């Protein structure tokens, strides 16, 4: 059981970091939205799929290649998120959280259903913009997979720096605690909430664009992933940004290594970890107990 070749270990570490990169980007977006809006965004997976479809449509109908889509698709999907927040989500902040859950869940169903009706359920391939790779001696590293991990890490770090180290970030953190009081300081909190939702959605869409060349572009791609991402957020600690990122990458790697040791368990190991964390520290590894 333990005589595993080193190449296999590094191979799974890489695979784990790639899955982890997607978990981290998606759970970070969820955590940002939950932190400020106190809304569990069930549409997150659909918005991720929408990002991948936006990249596919941009390529097919506008001839815009991957690198353009990487910027344009998140902007388009983020803007749609902003419209959704302004027109619908905003009306439900004052009522019980279950209504926001129902609203975002129904948005997910509408998006997925529409994509299915227009493009069918089977996956659409998207060409790898960075073919080839480099042999590192102990393993083969495809360029594109390395790019996904690096870009995802950079985006997570940038988001964390903005929130922890800048003035805007201190407004965000304060508004998470007392939005009413922050407004009395002359800060437009409703606008900040809208932009935060847009930012979280744009991160999901960007993850979708990143995923297109690795997985296929399909309407259900987000729904499958979202269940794992919710587990990641719970393990990291609801609303903790660093927790979301660290748990995202960490659990991707744990999942990858489990494939080596006991492959059948790899699809459930994250949920086993979630159960253990919930029993031992219900607020999550990096979460603060509810005030």
């Amino acid at each position: 059981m333990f005589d595993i070749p080193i190449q296999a270990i590094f191979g799974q570490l890489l695979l784990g970091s790639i899955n982890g990169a997607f978990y981290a980007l998606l759970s970070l977006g969820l955590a940002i939205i939950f932190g400020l809006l106190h809304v569990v965004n069930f549409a997150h997976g659909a918005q991720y799929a929408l990002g991948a479809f936006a990249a596919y449509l941009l390529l097919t109908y506008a001839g815009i290649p991957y690198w353009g889509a990487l910027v344009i698709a998140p902007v388009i999907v983020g803007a749609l998120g902003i419209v959704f927040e302004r027109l619908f989500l905003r009306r439900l902040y004052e009522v019980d959280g279950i209504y926001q859950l129902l609203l975002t869940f129904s948005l997910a169903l509408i998006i997925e259903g529409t994509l299915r009706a227009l493009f069918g359920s089977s996956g659409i391939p998207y060409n790898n913009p960075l073919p080839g790779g480099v042999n590192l001696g102990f393993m083969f590293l495809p360029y594109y997979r390395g790019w996904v991990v690096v870009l995802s890490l950079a985006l997570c770090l940038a988001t964390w720096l903005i929130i922890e180290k800048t003035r805007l970030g201190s407004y965000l953190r304060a508004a998470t605690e007392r939005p009413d009081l922050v407004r009395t300081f002359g800060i437009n909190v409703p606008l900040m909430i809208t932009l935060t939702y847009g930012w979280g959605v744009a991160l999901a869409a960007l993850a979708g664009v990143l995923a297109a060349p690795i997985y296929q572009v399909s309407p259900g791609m987000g729904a499958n992933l979202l269940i794992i991402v919710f587990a990641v957020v719970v393990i990291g600690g609801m609303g903790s940004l660093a927790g979301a990122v660290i748990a995202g990458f960490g659990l991707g790697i744990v999942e990858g290594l489990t494939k080596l040791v006991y492959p059948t368990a790899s699809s459930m190991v994250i949920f086993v970890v979630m159960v253990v964390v919930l029993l031992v520290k219900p607020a999550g590894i990096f979460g603060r107990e509810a005030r």
Partner: protein
Amino acid sequence: MAEAPPLLSVRDLRAGYGPSEALHGVALDVREGELVTLLGRNGAGKTTTLRAIIGLMKGRTGSIRIDGTETIRLAPERIARLGVAYCPEERGIFASLSVAENLVLPPVLRPGGLSTEEVYRLFPRLDERRASQGTKLSGGEQQMLAIARILRTGARILLLDEPTEGLAPVIVDQIGDIIADLKRRGLTILLVEQNFDFAARLADRLYVVENGRVAACFTAEEARADPARVQSLLSV
């Protein structure tokens, strides 16, 4: 003082929580540079009046004019930009921010505020504890921080909600000195208090709020000359 036009003018102010109305037509004036106190029993509507002035009470009606501008329909952030700052009863110190971050959180909206250094000179205790988490401070220090952070913004009107509540007498005296100093600097202050002696020492005028209305108004001289009359309105 009498000839100065009111900087803050409230007329027929009505506001409430859900279907129940808490304010039934409050009317009051605060002139520039004046320190006016709202006295009254628990639940009389003092805090609700302050929250309505800063714009936190939804569905408020009547008229609130700040330097002539009608604000009854404005959002809190717009009202703040007219030069109004609010210090809530529960202080509202942010747990996720350090003392220094709490202090500089409210942005400077208008010229004329204190610099960060001046604020630290006024509150040396906060200077010593800059790096502490905001909510690790003692109650008195949190109250000082809550007042200190609205002095940088350039606000002309300060709305202070029971800054002495739950504090030791020696701290209450310090807070009183600070408020007197702010008045000398020319700030206009509307202070909510339950403590009559504290209010009478600082205020130019005192309003007594009862059942969501202003029941009486005294000048400081009248209140000091006949404290029993004011007290009788406050006792159950």
